[in-house]
């Protein structure tokens, strides 16, 4: 966890903590809501939750690191969820992952230096008939090939540049 990150606005989660702190077994729910607010779980917010709820920090970190849903760093502008479920595997998702690495230099869980793309592999997006499948933000892309991936990435990069140029 990066210590350079600036302090988070802790007041954002007060209402969540107040709602759940006396409900037994709500830690996961609190963490989910926290991630919903900040986009990830900032270290200082986790410490704050510990103080407010009385749950030991070690337990909070233990639970947070157990579940794959939780992340400890901010994600890129384009969050790529690449399916590595069985159907996608059978239909060649490994080649897709390799192509993404070739194009962007990122592996599972990593973000590009320009902060544009984050790659996360997941198990089954439930669109197995379109496999191999990935989701970028809310959009689903199916029947992927290496060429398709390169085109999509190129397009998104161009889109991001246009936005930059406009600013």
């Amino acid at each position: 966890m990066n210590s350079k990150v600036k302090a988070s606005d802790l007041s954002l989660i007060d209402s969540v903590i107040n709602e759940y702190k006396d409900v037994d077994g709500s830690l996961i729910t609190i963490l989910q809501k926290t991630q919903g607010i900040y986009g990830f779980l900032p270290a200082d917010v986790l410490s704050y939750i510990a103080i407010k709820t009385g749950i030991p920090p070690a337990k909070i970190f233990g639970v947070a690191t157990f579940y794959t849903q939780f992340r400890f760093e901010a994600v890129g502008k384009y969050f790529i969820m690449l399916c590595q479920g069985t159907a996608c595997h059978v239909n060649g998702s490994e080649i897709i992952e390799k192509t993404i690495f070739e194009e962007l230099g990122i592996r599972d869980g990593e973000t590009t230096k320009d902060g544009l793309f984050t790659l996360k592999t997941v198990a089954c997006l439930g669109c197995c008939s379109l496999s191999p499948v990935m989701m970028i933000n809310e959009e689903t892309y199916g029947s992927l090939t290496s060429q398709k991936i390169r085109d999509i990435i190129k397009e998104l990069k161009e889109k991001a540049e246009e936005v930059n140029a406009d600013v």
Partner: protein
Amino acid sequence: MYNIKVGEGSCGISAGAAKIYSLLEKSNTDNIFGLSVTGCIGMCFLEPIVDIYNNDELCARLVQVKESDVEYILQFIATGDESAIKNLKISDDDSEFLSKQTRIALRNCGIIDPEDINDYISHGGYSALSKVIESLTPEQVIDEIKISGLAGRGGAGFPTWFKWNAARQSDGEEKYLICNADEGDPGAFMDRAVIESDPHALIEGMLIGAYAIGAKEAVVYVRAEYPLAIARLEKAIEQAKEKGYVGNNILGSDFSCSFRIKAGAGAFVCGEETALIESLEGQRGMPRLKPPFPAQSGYWGKPSNINNVETFANVTWIISNGGEAFAALGTEDSKGTKVFALTGKIRRGGLVEIPMGKTLNDVIFDIGDGMRTERAFKGVQLGGPSGGCIPANLADTQVDYKKLSATGAIMGSGGMVVMDESTCMVGMAKFFLDFTTKESCGKCVPCRIGTRRLLEILDRICKGEGKEGDIELLEELCIQIKDGSLCGLGQTAPNPVLTTLKYFRDEYEAHIKEKRCPAGECIDLISYNVLPEKCIGCLMCQKKCPVGAISGKVKEVQTIDHDKCIKCGRCKDVCRFGAVEIR
């Protein structure tokens, strides 16, 4: 009046159904036709699907509808002239995908509007609950389930009545009924489809279960990756509350039951019932040692009963139609139907519900229409990471708990992934072990370390570094992990290795002894080559090769320098003459 229903399950939406719905909605400001959303009909290979009803009767099912097709639909609605939509209609062949199924758990999927409780009620919904509350004792409910022969659909196939009875018999005022909607098998989506398409069927089944065991609180543990399922279930619970089916004094009786949804946070092991309970309590999802079973000591140490989504969806049907009717379907040992998520190299992929006793071939060839590639059918993986691969020559095995287990695979929760000759079986075993090592919770040593060692050996074999004795080593380790692990995850993790070793041993041997991958999938064991008789020398591959490994003059046969080649496969992708071959 025409009623249009757009299939909006997750798969339909990702294929573009929501856009089609909004286009239809925009052009219907005068309410010329009825428009609603429905769930997943299960024909994923034909999404997006638009059904047109003439009043209540289906008059046209349109498939693979594009945004540009909306104008034809509107034309048909305005004129009633079928020629406008002729090209969009499902073919007779593809209609067989549904007509050859027997639907119990999926009975309403793709038919009713999942966001409208009245639609569910008008299809007979909540009548089973009324019957139970008005005329049956909890013991009678359990008896009816016993007569039906229903076994748990979450994987283990344990008799449902037995679990209910044990929870009922347990001492204590406070009891919990829990639904396992964690659906962890990657490549399976039956439970998601039921919740997205027919959430009240689950709620009603759970209410009947709660009545039978004497629970006042019901919890649904849903995988976090299923946002649409969660949203629809939340809405359904709200509507059921308003109608008095959920809450205090249900239907005026003294039976009360509240409902709650808990979203999982991404951990396969939380599908295991005791790990699920830990997770519900806000802990790391680590399994508990059994006994005590949840029926004695579960959620917060109270008697609890956990069932799968499909199990509950069947319960409602059984109470409405009688246990005998359910038991009339299936085989001696396995009653009723089973839903499968049919995927992989299959032509018609989607949700398939068939009576027990049909064969795997029936599902794959009769309903699924065989391979979508030109290659031959090689095998089918059942039960995901806990299951096994059944080879083509055993695909006449009946869908039946005992008969499938006899092959070394399991019925599982319903994932059915079809493979053709291009799938490497060692690679498949490695894929699953990669999954289980990542998902092992780490509590017990055989699972945590054993699966990792298995993965290392498999990885070595796939890289062409396999050694004499590796196969025996794998077998020995598999047995130890099976025997020594604490929970079902570790106990079943070796299954993919054991079944591929049993049925595809020659492939392991080819990797180890000849350093050859017969399926042509293991990257370290293959090479790309140009077929002289097909290459016309267009230079396309040469231009696209990122490392300059291809040389040759225009209009002449190209050659690939294997020392430079990084096996990225671009040459094969771009060749329009099929002249690049993997060897």
